[in-house]
């Protein structure tokens, strides 16, 4: 039984100072995770006579239209497509495969609208929503009683969306944003940081600086330069994400080692999110013994589906917006600080639904619902 996968990735434009070996993403970011997922699926697959393969891999430059590359994947016969593309492109892809028996995974776009007004029943999200990331962070900060935040927002539209998610989470968990400031010192403040940042971070009393800067243009420069001695969190400092080399509990050492042996580097969030997409199909196919997209979907949204993702407990998809539930880790570059949901944030059915959009808050309406 065959499982043909397609993988497509389009990065955002590099900020000008992404030229050092610490911040520059590896060439195989994400697709290396997909490759490991295929290997893991095949190790299982050989016992049940299932054959997983990547029939097409497309790395699209950021200024190009990804649709021709996407169509090439379809022509190559891909039935399961793992995409790391911006939200608008993803929606076009979803429309292109509507009712064609293709399962499309969103492995990178964190846009909340893809889980809300712009949700599509054809897309499964292994990428977290921004709401999940900021809720995870908010739970931790509130647990620490660091309830007053200075919010620093970058100059890109995505940064404003992240800041919106921060504001939503603050309201949800009872934190206060004392002031929001927009970064307007250009894309590279490495030389001028010591002059502008102390002034920029002056505000009424706050506990934490929350940074909304998804490309990392200025966030990493804020720590140790702020007017008051305050920690940074969000997209820099204490980062909320799905995966990091610092995750070693819950059996994670195994996948970290496996990944390192394969790719000679640490596993990154996009690698993990692509791996999760691969494993969603692998896990489901092993149990249903089927490659029929309808049968797979029924199982994925059924009560028995559980995906093991090395962060404790099992992951599953929210049926109301197709978002994969998973714990969010809060980490610095070298050490894991915490994983949310935090203890004490209760939920009537699944604690993982305390982060992100729970059913009552969902604005997603799939056809037929």
């Amino acid at each position, binding site marked *: 039984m065959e499982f043909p996968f397609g993988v497509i990735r389009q990065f955002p434009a590099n900020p000008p100072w992404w030229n050092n070996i610490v911040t520059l993403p590896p060439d195989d970011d994400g697709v290396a995770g997909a490759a490991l997922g295929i290997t893991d699926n095949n190790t299982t697959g050989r*016992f049940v006579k299932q054959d997983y393969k990547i029939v097409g891999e497309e790395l699209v430059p950021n200024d190009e239209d990804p649709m021709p590359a996407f169509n090439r994947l379809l022509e190559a016969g891909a039935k399961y497509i793992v995409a790391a593309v911006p939200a608008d492109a993803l929606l076009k892809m979803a429309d292109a495969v509507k009712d064609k028996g293709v399962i499309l995974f969103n492995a990178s776009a964190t846009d909340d609208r893809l889980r809300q007004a712009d949700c599509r029943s054809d897309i499964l999200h292994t990428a977290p929503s921004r709401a999940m990331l900021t809720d995870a962070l908010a739970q931790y900060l509130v647990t620490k009683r660091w309830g007053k935040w200075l919010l620093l927002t970058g100059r890109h539209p995505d940064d404003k969306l992240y800041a919106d998610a921060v504001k939503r989470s603050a309201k949800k968990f009872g934190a206060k944003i004392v002031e929001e400031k927009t970064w307007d010192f250009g894309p590279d403040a490495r030389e001028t940081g010591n002059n502008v940042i102390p002034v920029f971070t002056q505000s009424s009393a706050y506990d934490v600086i929350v940074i909304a800067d998804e490309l990392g243009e200025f966030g990493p420069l804020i720590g140790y330069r702020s007017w008051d001695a305050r920690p940074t969190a969000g997209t820099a400092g204490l980062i909320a994400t799905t995966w990091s080399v610092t995750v070693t509990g819950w059996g994670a050492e195994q996948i970290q080692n496996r990944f390192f042996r394969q790719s000679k580097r640490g596993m990154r969030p996009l690698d993990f999110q692509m791996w999760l997409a691969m494993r969603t199909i692998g896990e489901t196919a092993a149990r249903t013994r089927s490659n029929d997209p309808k049968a797979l979907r029924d199982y994925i949204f059924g009560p028995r589906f559980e995906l093991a993702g090395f962060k404790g407990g099992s992951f599953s998809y929210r049926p109301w917006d197709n978002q994969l539930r998973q714990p969010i880790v809060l980490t610095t570059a070298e050490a894991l600080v915490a994983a949310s949901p935090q203890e004490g944030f209760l939920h009537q059915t699944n604690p993982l639904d305390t982060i992100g959009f729970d059913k009552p808050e969902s604005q997603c309406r799939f056809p037929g619902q």
Partner: protein
Amino acid sequence: MNPSIRRRVLLPLVRAGAVAAGLTAAFAPGAAFAGKVFVTNERDHTMTVIDSDSLKTLETVKTGRRPRGLTASPDGKLIYVCASDDNRVEVYDSSTYKMLRTLPSGPDPELFVLHPSGNPLYIANEDDALVTIVDTDTGKVQGEIPVGVEPEGMGISPDGKVLVNTSETTSMAHFIDTSTKQIVENVLVDSRPRYAEFTPDGKTVWVSAEVGGTVSVIDIAGHQVVKRLTFQIPGVTEDAIQPVGIRITKDGSTAFVALGPANRVAVVDTKTYEVKKYLLVGQRVWQLAFSPDEKTLYSSNGNSNDISVIDVASEKVTKSVTTGRSPWGVVAVP
């Protein structure tokens, strides 16, 4: 006979007799039997040796890096330790605590099981999707069997004919014929299976699934899951119930299941599959081991750095004993 030697030989008997004569409820568990409990400390790279009578630490033995799986030879004289990060199995003398030799294990050995005769040793190589077979006398690798992703749990039938390995990411129990060294069947179980334990009659094997939160009872003859056990503990979320180690009494009547971060050991009636009781033990309970007389059960508690001592007859936790950091494996010998 040299009188001093005779005294030394007699002393334990006299002590055992004295305790038996003045038997009190508090001292009953394990008192008639002074053995040793070995515990591997995953993060200390050591093994703690505890006197099963006094529950005092006799020795802390330095081992290879990241010791996890632990077992004893049938006569209790040898202790085998998986030194996961050193990619080897270490063999210790259970009376002198000296390392006698090392065995090749393949990469990242996590758990293993000895053939009931004491030879060979079947080792799960977690990072390499293999089961390695090692002759414990010659130290030679007799074979490697490719299995699923992240093999861990290892169980062997009482007659030594059927080996069961569980692979965590593949979520399967692989049934291996020990004579042909071939997989004969793969049975899907719930997510992240970690441990396999045969019932003493050899008719079923119990497989715990950590993420699935269940124990599957698999019929050996038909390779079918005949029962999926679930656990409910008031006040404990479903997510915290993560079954790992399993032990079944020799009479086959009672199973004990370690439930990980639920900090409980479930006591299960093997006939009705009903959970009779949940015993509160230390934090993140990994593995279990009976004392040789089966009067006592020990649990290794990874997060509270101790073992819990359970009286099997009364199904009560009587004590906890401090170990090194992150105790993982536990075994008791005479």
